[in-house]
Structures are given as structure tokens and as C-alpha cells.
């Protein structure tokens, strides 16, 4: 599917002439659409002159993106990179200062604590929009294996191509994901935006003061156009307003779209570590499901690794308050000791090193590469946490409104799919916009946006539901579901019916 559609350049080259003809013929040949979208169509044809002639405020933009996180930046870069959408007048609004990200340069022997895992399809899009070449490959760690196991029963799924019957397929790329620092990714995206022929207007260090509908002026009827007022007093009228503004999206609130879901009463604790020499083992991602939430170690280049430990807010507070050496012992224990021990260790304010040393000597646990190698040191100031929740907006679009990324759906991070599905939204949205423009539609009309929603809603809903059920399933400490889930895991792990190979190739392909 991807190859058919994402290759904008090819598609556009092939259809360039037809497209022009279509655009020219539109009002007569496709009159139904022309009438339906008559007002915006007129404005589209005369946009630039109106924009300059109209009263100093609001300034008219085709697309206004609220939010300059990775998803918002990817959207701005993709709109500029795709030929069909590259002529659009785009503005991006971000509350924070983008200069530190733009000027970011890597510190040797240091990795930031906020890391994202980019699946191959995400990387393909980043390559296409010219962002991937700005990512320094020596600070990216890819992995093609995972070790996932149950903290209560030890039942394990090994996604390891070398252990799979039939081995690695030489033809296909078996990479499951690439680990990149958030700031590094944003830096690459900003550079890609800088390379664009038509620069979007980047407005940073500026908050959105309010969003409201425009007014009927002498020449323009902007009553169904969202107008964004910034903290600087500047006003932007948007043919299409895109909310890439996170979980508490102001754009979503403005559109009156309800977002449903629940809080998990869990926080995710992150940190970056130095680890023992692991050159003898393949780079794997590790995740152990404890009843309080999964704990994961993700690989980074060299002897570094990143932690993502979902657990109760009280336990996170405790983990943050521990002395560095006790914290390190605690994380090592989280992959080695029984849940009873881990639970008990959460009550210790000190002496964790001593206690875990004894427990590890009497507890039978697997050795690397089935579990991560020992971590030796936590990097200063990298311990942080954020609350976890599940939210899904009732819809992603309204007239002249679209929601992408966390504004549309917030997911538990255990599968590392939050940003990837956000970038999937961006890809789908840009594709829909290009399709709409090709057919002479207004970029803000629901007709243009509808394919985006219908393509993304169900897959996102399925993913959210699946991850939410996993969270519930692994929340049980005992009871009938514990052996059942282990049985399921065993069946997958034995590669019956080729299930495991299928899952692994899907992960690598996606």
C-alpha cells in the first residue's frame, strides 16, 4: 500500500498534466463539487490578492498547524515536501522556543532521556521528506529482536530472527525499530523544514490565546473559518486548522470534539543508563510485564540504554528519590527478581544494593541475552516521569479542522506506537489533502478530510484497544488469566502455525 501511494514525486510526475487539466476543467465538469465548495473555491483562486488587500488582521493561511512537537513538525515538513501540497501557505505555532532544538548538537557520552522508537514505515516517510539525512546515524540504534516476558510466570516471547526456524530472510530488512532521541528527531525535522523551497511560517515562543470563527468582512465570508489569535495579538485565519497540540488539544476543544478514555493511574519513569559491555550480544529491546506495569530497556548506541518503567505514581516518586546506586540496583532487580521482591524493594529507602545482591544470589533468572546486561550507572538528571492515559477522540475531523497525533489519540507507551501512529496520521492526512487538491477541492472541506479519518480511525482504535487490553491482562497477579496468558505466549513463541514469523515480518514491514 505504501509503495503505491507515498511515492508522491512519482505519482505527481505521472499525473501532473492530467491534474492541471482536471483543475482547469473542474467548475464545469465536476459541477456538484464545484457548487458544494463554491465559496472556498472562489477564495482559493484569488487567495493571495485577498490576503494582502484585506484588513491587517487576520492573515489568511491555507494550513495552520498548532503544535511544534515531532508530529507537527513532520506535518509541516511533509506538506512542504509533497509536490501537490508544497504551494500551500502554511503556518506552524509552537509555545516553546524552537531555537535550542534547531541549534542542538550531540553531547558525546550522553543521551537524552526522552527516546522514541521509529518503526520502518515512519523512517521511510522521514527519508522521503528529507529529514532522515539530517539524523546522525551514529546516534541511532536499530534493533531486530525483542525479548518480552511475563513477570509472574516467566512465559516469554523471543523475537529473535536467529532463533527462528529458517533463520533470517536475506531479502527483507528485519529491523523492528530505530531508537532516536526526541530532540534529535525534532532537530532533523527542523533542518528538513529549513531545506524547503516554500518555507512555512514558523511562529515559536507564542501561545494560542484563543480560537474563534471569523467574521463577514466586505469581501470575505469567514464565518466558518477558524481564526487563531496568538499571545502576540497576531491573528491567523485558517482554511484548515490542524491540531497537533497534544493530549489537552485546544484545537479539539474548539471543534467541540469529545475525547474519551481513562487514566491508568500509572506513570512512566524514564532514565538513561550506562551499561556493561554488551558487544557479545545482539542489541535487543527488553520488556518484562509486572502486575504494576511493564518495565522496558531499550538499546542505544554504544554502552548506553534507556529505561521506560510504567508503574504507580507512588512507586515512581520512590524510584526518583533513591540514591543513584540504589536506583541502578532497583532497575537491575526489575529484570531479575520475583515480583514479590520488587514490591518489597519499593519500600526500602536505602540499602537496595545490598538487598538485591542477596536476592539475586538465591533467585534463578535467565542470563543475557535473554535479559538485558547489567546497567552500571544512571546519567545525571535523566530521571523523569509522565502520567499515562488512554484517550480517543470521537472523530479526527470537522469542517476546516483536523486532529493528528496525541490530539486525536493518546496510547499507553508499552508498544512504542504513540509517535508512530501520529506520523501515520500525518502521512494519511497529507495524502488526503493532495488528493483533494488534485480534484480541485478546498483543503479545509470535510470531503477532502474524510479519507484521512476513514483510513486512520479504525487502525488507531484497534491499536489503542489492543494495548489497553494487554495492560489489563498483565495487571493480574494471580487468577485464571495468568496461566491462560502464559499459554498464549507459549503458543506464539513456539511459532505454531507460523504465527511468530508472521508477526515478526509484519513488524519489520509495517
Amino acid at each position, binding site marked *: 500500500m505504501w509503495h503505491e501511494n507515498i511515492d508522491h514525486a512519482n505519482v505527481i510526475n505521472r499525473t501532473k498534466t492530467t491534474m492541471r487539466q482536471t483543475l482547469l476543467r473542474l467548475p464545469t465538469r465536476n459541477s456538484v463539487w464545484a457548487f458544494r465548495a463554491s465559496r472556498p473555491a472562489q477564495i482559493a483562486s484569488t487567495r493571495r490578492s485577498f490576503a494582502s488587500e484585506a484588513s491587517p488582521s487576520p492573515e489568511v493561511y491555507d494550513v495552520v498547524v498548532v503544535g511544534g512537537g515531532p508530529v507537527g513538525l513532520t506535518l509541516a515538513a511533509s506538506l512542504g515536501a509533497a509536490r501537490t501540497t508544497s504551494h500551500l501557505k502554511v503556518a506552524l505555532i509552537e509555545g516553546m522556543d524552537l531555537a535550542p532544538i534547531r541549534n542542538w548538537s550531540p553531547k558525546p557520552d550522553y543521551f537524552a532521556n526522552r527516546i522514541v522508537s521509529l518503526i520502518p514505515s515512519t523512517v521511510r516517510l522521514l527519508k522521503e521528506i528529507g529529514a532522515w539525512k539530517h539524523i546522525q546515524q551514529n546516534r541511532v540504534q536499530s534493533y531486530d529482536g525483542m525479548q518480552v516476558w511475563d513477570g509472574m510466570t516467566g512465559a516469554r516471547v523471543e523475537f529473535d530472527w536467529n532463533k527462528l526456524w529458517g533463520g533470517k530472510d536475506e531479502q527483507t530488512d528485519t529491523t523492528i525499530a530505530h531508537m532516536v532521541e526526541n530532540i534529535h528527531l525534532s532537530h532533523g525535522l527542523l533542518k528538513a523544514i529549513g531545506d524547503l523551497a516554500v518555507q512555512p511560517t514558523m511562529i515559536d515562543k507564542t501561545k494560542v490565546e484563543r480560537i474563534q470563527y471569523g467574521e463577514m468582512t466586505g469581501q470575505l465570508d469567514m464565518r466558518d473559518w477558524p481564526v487563531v489569535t496568538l499571545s502576540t495579538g497576531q491573528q491567523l485565519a485558517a482554511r484548515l486548522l490542524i491540531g497537533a497540540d497534544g493530549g489537552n488539544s485546544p484545537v479539539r476543544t474548539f471543534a467541540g470534539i469529545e475525547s474519551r478514555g481513562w487514566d491508568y493511574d500509572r506513570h512512566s519513569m524514564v532514565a538513561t543508563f550506562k551499561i556493561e559491555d554488551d558487544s557479545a550480544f545482539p542489541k535487543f529491546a527488553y520488556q518484562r510485564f509486572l502486575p504494576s506495569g511493564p518495565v522496558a530497556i531499550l538499546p542505544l548506541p554504544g554502552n548506553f540504554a534507556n529505561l521506560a518503567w510504567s508503574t504507580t505514581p507512588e512507586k515512581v516518586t520512590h524510584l526518583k528519590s533513591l540514591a543513584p546506586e540504589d536506583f541502578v540496583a532497583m532497575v537491575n532487580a526489575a529484570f531479575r527478581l*520475583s515480583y*514479590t*521482591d520488587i*514490591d*518489597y524493594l519499593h519500600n526500602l529507602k536505602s540499602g537496595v544494593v545490598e538487598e538485591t545482591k*542477596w536476592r539475586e*544470589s*538465591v533467585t*534463578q533468572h*535467565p542470563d543475557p541475552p535473554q535479559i538485558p546486561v547489567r546497567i552500571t550507572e544512571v546519567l545525571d538528571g535523566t530521571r523523569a516521569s509522565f502520567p499515562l492515559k488512554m484517550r480517543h477522540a470521537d472523530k479526527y475531523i470537522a469542517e476546516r479542522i483536523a486532529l493528528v497525533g496525541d490530539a486525536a489519540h493518546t496510547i499507553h507507551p508499552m508498544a512504542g506506537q504513540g509517535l508512530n501512529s501520529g506520523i501515520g496520521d500525518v502521512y494519511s492526512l497529507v495524502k488526503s489533502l493532495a488528493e483533494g487538491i488534485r480534484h480541485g477541492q478546498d483543503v479545509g472541506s470535510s470531503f477532502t478530510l474524510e479519507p484521512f479519518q476513514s483510513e486512520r480511525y479504525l487502525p488507531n482504535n484497534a491499536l489503542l484497544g489492543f494495548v489497553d487490553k494487554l495492560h489489563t491482562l498483565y495487571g493480574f497477579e494471580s487468577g485464571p488469566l495468568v496461566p491462560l496468558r502464559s499459554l498464549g505466549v507459549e503458543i506464539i513463541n513456539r511459532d505454531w502455525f507460523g504465527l511468530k514469523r508472521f508477526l515478526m515480518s509484519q513488524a519489520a514491514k509495517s
Partner: protein
Amino acid sequence: MAASTTCLRCLRSRALPAASNRAFSVLNRPPPNYPGHVPLTGPERLFLAAGSALMSFIDPRRGDMIALLGETTAQPFFITRLRDTMLRHPTGRRILRARPRITSQSLSLPRLRSLPPNTIGATYVAWLDREGVSPDTRADVRYIDDEECAYVMQRYRECHDFYHAITGLPIVREGEIALKAFEFANTGLPMTGLSVFSALTVKADERERLLKVYLPWAVRNGMQAESVLNVYWEEELETDVGEMRERLGIEVPPDLRTARAEARRRKRDGKTTTTTATTAAAGTAPTGDETAKVETEAERAEREQLEIERKAMEILEQADKM
């Protein structure tokens, strides 16, 4: 010395996963996880469990059979759960870390005899003396695979006499059954639960007393009390028994010996027409003189029977030690 053996043990336990990759059968038994350990195959475990259950039902004085039943039925789930109960408790953790053993060497019996009579140590030693047993009569655990779980089983076994001491239940079959029911509610070990079935083999009036008084007491107290494995008995020898019962949440059961004596008296009164001695001191143990005075033919026979049973027990215990 303890430290050096622990080290050897953990080396061995580390070596196990590699060895256990091969098919485990009678012909290919993996090396022991700790000294004295005998790894069993599934069918062997099943056979030993069934055999020992049958033997202990037929002859409840076979302590070795009861111990074997305990070990073969505790794995995989129950003993781990009991270990986890200890791991969740600070004292339980300390015990697991130090792994103290109760023997006549580790406990100085003469010192215990010199303690005030209401202390746990004095009650324990008085109880040992009265029943004529010694702390050394407990066999080593052999059939539990995990070394730490094996220690938990050992600890449970060695502390069994302390449970007698704090509950005051005697080693007559009735007392043992009541205590086993208490242990089952408290520790969840299957053997203790299975042992309660030997209530089917006691006399009808004893069974009735068990069902009406002692089993309800055992279930209620076993469940509400703190786990008896989380008591560091060696450190509590000078603690007052009442205080310990209160701390654990155990009510004192009615004195079984008194109850038995009274029942016998009532039985005799029923048979004879005399109406004297009906006001035998309730709640206090009858003194030797009193029993001598009112002893009847039937009672003397029973006392002799008990004497013989006790002698037999002693001989068996001697045999166990050898």
C-alpha cells in the same frame, strides 16, 4: 562456614538451567541443587505423594511418611507462595537471609529451662520434656527443587514444636489433627490439609470434639493469625507466650488434655450410679492425685495404651535419628 556453603550453592543453582536443557528422566537425573537434594521426575513425585499419603493414613505415627508427603505435594505452587509470604515480611526476610536451623546445639535447652515459666522458651522446653521429644528429631528436606523453598520447608518443620508450644495442643492424635488444620489455614501447605482427613480414623467422640471445637478454632485462628513462619523463634524465647499469641492473633484453644480427662470422667459417671466428683475443677488440669483416686479400669487401660504409644514414638524417633 555458612557463607562458603551458600556460595557453592549459588554456583550450583546457576549451573542448573544448562543441565536441565537435556531431557530429564530416571536415567538422566540432573545434579542436585543443594546438598541432599534429590531431583524427581513428575511420575516419581506422583508415586511418592500417593504412597506416602496412603502410608500416613494407615499409620499416622510414620513421621517420615508425613514429611515425604509434605515435600512431594508442596511443589510447585504452595511452597513458593509460602516463601513469598515470608519475603513480604521484614522478619520473614531476615530468616530467609540468615537461614537459622533449630537443633539442640543452636538452642541451649538448659538455659531455656531456667527462663520464667510463662516465656516461649520455657513453655517450649517444658513441652519438649513433657512429650519426651527433642529438636533434633526433624529430617532434612530432599525433594524440593528450589534451594530457598527447601529451606522454607525445613523451617516450617523445625518450628512445628513451637506451634505446639504456643497453641498448647498436645501430641496425641487429636491434638496433632487440630494443629495440622491450624497450619493448613495458616501456611496453605497441602500436606497439613490432607492430614486433617485422619480425623476419619479417630474415635467417634474425639471426632465429634474435633468437628465441634478444634477444627473451627483452627480454621478461624489459622486464617486470621499472622503467618507463623514470620516469627524469629530464636529471638522470641524470652517473650511472654500470651504476648506472642496476642501479637500473632491466636486465641488459646480449650485445653485438650483437660477436655479429654473430663470426657472420660463423664463417660465413667454415666456408667456408674455414683453421683460424686461431678464438680471436677473445670478448666484446670487434674492433678496426679485426683486422677489416681478416680481412675477406673477403662481409664487405666487407656493410660497404659498411651504409655505404650509414647514408648513406640520414642523408639521410632530414635530410629529416625540413626
